[in-house]
């Protein structure tokens, strides 16, 4: 049993290694729910998912059920999905529309901002019972950046602006691709679970070292991946003739900033040859909206994956927003939302949705091998004789990057994971 003190927690993380208990210990998981998901800014959804008053979506902050809802004043609210009376979960569906939130148990009825409006048989209420004391709990902090709704359960947490810092540019990188300058995450979602710790998916998002091995089955005899972008003839060259990681792949870089966030540089693809009717129509629409020069700038890929610690990522190649939902120490749900670029031709959005089925559905070519690896890692980490997980690649080789105001290293190395555990330690060392 871990005592949860800063000393005990810090003993689990060393400069180039992590103790296996970080992935396998249920007590540590409980502390993570309290000290990370109970405090950090976490992504809960996107404004486009609740366009009209009464529209709602249900999700969790850590394991706590919440409702993202559009109130009649036009603003978005995030409410605890728990009746203030006896605790029943009020909204059961993944999404829907309601004028009032009515508890199925005793019929308490709440407005879309959480205000308690009525209680059946009010004559039986205690003498000092006041409706105003029994609204649905509203999360203490909520801020929105370009439609991305983030919340923190800790009133004392610094602003979302401080938290995101340079990562706002990574969100911009995605949103600016829309000719109308806005995106919608309203094209369904891919849902899957794996029998492994949530941090295995977080670490994997920016791990480029694994691709030629874990995803070798997606590579043809020439070492090229299948085409993953609209308008490309072929995918990235990942493996060289000698069955080793290709030079182009090796050249990729990773970057970290504060709070565990980071990203990887773009996959090497031939952008000059990119062409298809859908793609060309989209480029035209974007140029008509923002001008040719700016369109060229937006469409010159810069980012592959961005991680906004602790629970979301944005992918620039097969555009999507991914949310990581811890369920227990060895069970994790992942939700992948296709992105609709508003103002783009329907055919382009359709192509992006179709390509994402192939790369990131529960039946996809890419993500399924990752899920298998996560489960195998969780099994491997049961071994107690070897206590440590090695994350030392590139340790000491980090260098400042002035262009991005970030720290830079080879994407074949593990700087990004070390940065995640620095943030993990910062959150975990302090009682919530």
């Amino acid at each position: 049993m871990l005592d949860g003190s800063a000393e005990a927690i810090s003993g689990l993380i060393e400069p180039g290694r992590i103790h296996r208990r970080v992935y396998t210990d249920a007590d540590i998981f409980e502390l993570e729910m309290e000290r990370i998901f109970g405090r950090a800014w976490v992504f809960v959804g996107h404004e486009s998912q609740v366009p009209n008053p009464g529209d709602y979506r249900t999700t969790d902050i850590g394991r706590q059920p919440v409702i993202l809802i559009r109130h009649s004043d036009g603003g978005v609210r995030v409410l605890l999905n728990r009746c203030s009376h006896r605790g029943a979960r009020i909204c059961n569906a993944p999404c829907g529309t309601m004028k009032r939130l009515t508890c199925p148990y005793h019929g308490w009825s709440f407005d879309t901002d959480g205000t308690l409006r009525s209680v059946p048989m009010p004559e039986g209420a205690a003498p000092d019972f006041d409706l105003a004391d029994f609204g649905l709990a509203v999360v203490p902090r909520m801020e929105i950046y370009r439609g991305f709704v983030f919340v923190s359960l800790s009133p004392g947490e610094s602003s979302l602006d401080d938290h995101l810092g340079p990562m706002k540019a990574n969100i911009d990188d995605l949103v600016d691709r829309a000719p109308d300058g806005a995106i919608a995450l309203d094209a369904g979602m891919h849902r899957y679970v794996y029998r492994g710790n949530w941090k295995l998916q977080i670490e994997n998002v920016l791990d480029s070292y694994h691709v030629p091995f874990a995803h070798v089955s997606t590579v043809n005899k020439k070492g090229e991946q299948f085409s993953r972008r609209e308008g490309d003839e072929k995918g990235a060259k990942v493996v060289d003739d000698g069955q080793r990681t290709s030079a182009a792949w090796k050249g990729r870089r990773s970057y970290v900033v504060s709070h565990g966030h980071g990203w990887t540089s773009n996959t090497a693809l031939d952008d000059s040859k990119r062409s298809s009717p859908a793609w060309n129509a989209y480029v035209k629409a974007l140029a008509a909206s923002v001008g040719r020069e700016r369109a060229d700038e937006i469409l010159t890929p810069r980012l592959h994956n961005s991680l906004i610690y602790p629970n979301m990522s944005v992918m620039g190649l097969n555009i999507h927003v991914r949310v990581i939902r811890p369920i227990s120490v060895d069970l994790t749900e992942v939700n992948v939302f296709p992105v609709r670029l508003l103002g783009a031709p329907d055919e382009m959005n359709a192509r992006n949705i179709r390509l994402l089925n192939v790369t990131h559905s529960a039946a996809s070519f890419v993500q399924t091998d990752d899920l298998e690896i996560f489960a195998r890692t969780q099994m491997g980490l049961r071994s107690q004789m070897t206590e440590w997980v090695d994350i030392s690649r590139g340790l000491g080789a980090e260098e400042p990057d002035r262009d991005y105001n970030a720290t830079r290293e080879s994407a074949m190395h593990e700087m990004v994971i070390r940065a995640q555990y620095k943030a993990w330690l910062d959150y975990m060392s302090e009682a919530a």
Partner: protein
Amino acid sequence: MTDLLMAPGVGQPGGVPGIAREPFELFLIHEARLLDARRFEDWMNLFTEDGVYWVPARSGQDDPDLEASLFYDDREMMKTRFDRLNHPLIHVQTPPSRTLHLVSNVVVEQADEAAGEFVISSSMLMTEYRLDNQRLFAGRQQHRLVKHGDTYRIAFKRVDIINCDSALEAMAVPI
């Protein structure tokens, strides 16, 4: 012919009068056996050149261009999928799944004998075993079949599995 993009409803009891279901039932049984035998190329070749295989990710979904799907493969995508399934280092199929399909409740929903086109609905169960885990998929299938010599080709196949919108563990083989 009904657009199979629409989610299936309850058709006419007994199906189309005068059209025997048996040849279609035997075709669907053959299709299921190819999948269970992991003869994926042969399964793919049951589709017409422009044939499509669709497994929606939401109950009632009616447009694969507007929403995420579990599978939405044309022949080219199927080929990429099966090249990968034949790769010796496909980790999610090491060891491979074993599956058993049952196809039942076969009904000829529509028939245009002159054009050689038929819509067949059926219920399916697929039990999948892999690495000490067994799981069950249940769904309603709709096939748009076109006459091809003395057999049929699949122009469109839609499978609505009842838990399509749940959080699924990795799926590597077609339903």
